[in-house]
């Protein structure tokens, strides 16, 4: 396959960037999108040019490190991660635009790499459970109803890639935050911190400068893990419950 790539190149956070055009051939349709970028980078290195910086790690769709906006879609045209997107979804001769996640809370570090540490700080505010150290507890000691386990598992699928923020017209992190809150809040292990978790994670999210939710639904369409829009309504319910309880104390 031959492609015309237009890639966002930006030297560092403080230098303005621009789209740069590269023509590339010998792309196999079995390559992943990242392998296609590797091929481009090999050529750039041989030509003595700076390779395109992009994030990646597992390359099997589970770490959430990769992620670029391809032709306006976060992670490209298929509902999967960029590393799992195959070139067979493009046609010979296509022009493909590759841009970094765009959000005020995700500043560009270089080329296609953005700083997503805002997500880490949201997790730090409550995306965990406090457990005493020592021997692992007996698995049957804390029964979890099947429906709750399923609900927790659906939300636990979030890999923190940030596609939801990138797709949102408001740069909102509500889908990510709601996935994390719902995952833990429904489980007995998460119950002791149920109220502080949602209140603290939502205020951490606000402090990072993410936008608010206008229920546009772009996040859920972009999410490679199928976190659904009602996840946000479920977190709102938790937040209202916790706010009511806190105000009664």
């Amino acid at each position: 396959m031959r492609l015309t790539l237009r890639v966002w190149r930006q030297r560092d956070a403080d230098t303005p960037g621009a789209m740069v055009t590269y023509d590339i051939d010998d792309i196999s349709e079995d390559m992943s999108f990242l392998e296609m970028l590797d091929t481009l980078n090999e050529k750039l290195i041989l030509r003595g040019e700076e390779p395109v910086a992009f994030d990646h790690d597992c390359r099997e769709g589970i770490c959430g490190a990769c992620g670029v906006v391809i032709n306006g879609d976060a992670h490209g045209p298929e509902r999967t991660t960029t590393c799992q997107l195959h070139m067979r979804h493009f046609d010979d001769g296509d022009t493909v635009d590759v841009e970094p996640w765009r959000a005020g809370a995700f500043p560009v570090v270089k080329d296609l790499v953005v700083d997503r540490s805002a997500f880490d700080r949201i997790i730090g505010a409550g995306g965990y459970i406090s457990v005493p150290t020592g021997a692992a507890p007996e698995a049957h000691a804390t029964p979890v109803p099947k429906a709750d386990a399923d609900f927790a598992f659906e939300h636990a699928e979030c890999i923190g890639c940030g596609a939801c923020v990138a797709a949102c017209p408001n740069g909102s992190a509500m889908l990510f935050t709601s996935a994390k809150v719902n995952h833990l809040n429904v489980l007995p292990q998460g119950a002791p911190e149920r109220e502080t978790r949602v209140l603290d994670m939502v205020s951490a999210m606000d402090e990072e400068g993410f936008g608010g939710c206008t229920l546009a639904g772009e996040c859920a369409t972009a999410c490679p893990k199928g976190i659904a829009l009602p996840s946000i309504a479920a977190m709102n319910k938790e937040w209202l419950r916790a706010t009511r309880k806190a105000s009664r104390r």
Partner: protein
Amino acid sequence: MALATRTDRRPSLTRSLWGSTVGKKTVMAVSGLIMLMYLVAHMLGNLKIFFGSGEFNTYAHWLRTMGEPLLHYEWALWGVRVVLLAAVVLHGVAAYQLSRRDIRARPSKYVHKRRRASYATRTMRWGGIILALFIVWHLLDLTTLTVNENAQPGRPYENVVATFSTWYGNVIYLVAMLAVGLHVRHGFWSAAQTLGMGNARRDRILKTLANGLALVLTAGFVSVPVAVMTGVVG
């Protein structure tokens, strides 16, 4: 199992609501739903115009004597006005502040553009501004009668007919009612999500309800200018 949980100090309910994006959206949802309930009542009341001048004007007078003899003349009406004013101010200020924040959260646009979200969703802000301007015009037209061609206090039937006998009256009201429909279509469903009532199972019914409400409201309101224009009411 002894867990070290922190003692938790939280701001007051008002502070937590207004200080958080989720809370401010809750204020928008509640104020929006209050206005929506009022709009349904208002639309139904307007339909009395089809029963003639006598019945419509008597109904309009009753709005002022509502609640008597327990309440004084116009007290109930003023109660409604105060609630609506509070709702519209809270809704508008929250919308403005949240929109400012949302725009700041997405400072650079994508080079590769593509159409996002539905029409009703994308027009919430402009639609809201149209509604705010319309509310001012509507009050000047049929409440204070400042801009009304007929302007007879106590004769709302004749005043309404006068409004819809001008081309600009028809244009303003028709555009505004279309804006109401679009705003309610996304707004009602949104409010359900904001208040935590949405889930996968209920989504269909909530969307249907939102579309139904939007359609009934717009059709009900629009029927009045159309009736005057076609001579059914005059």
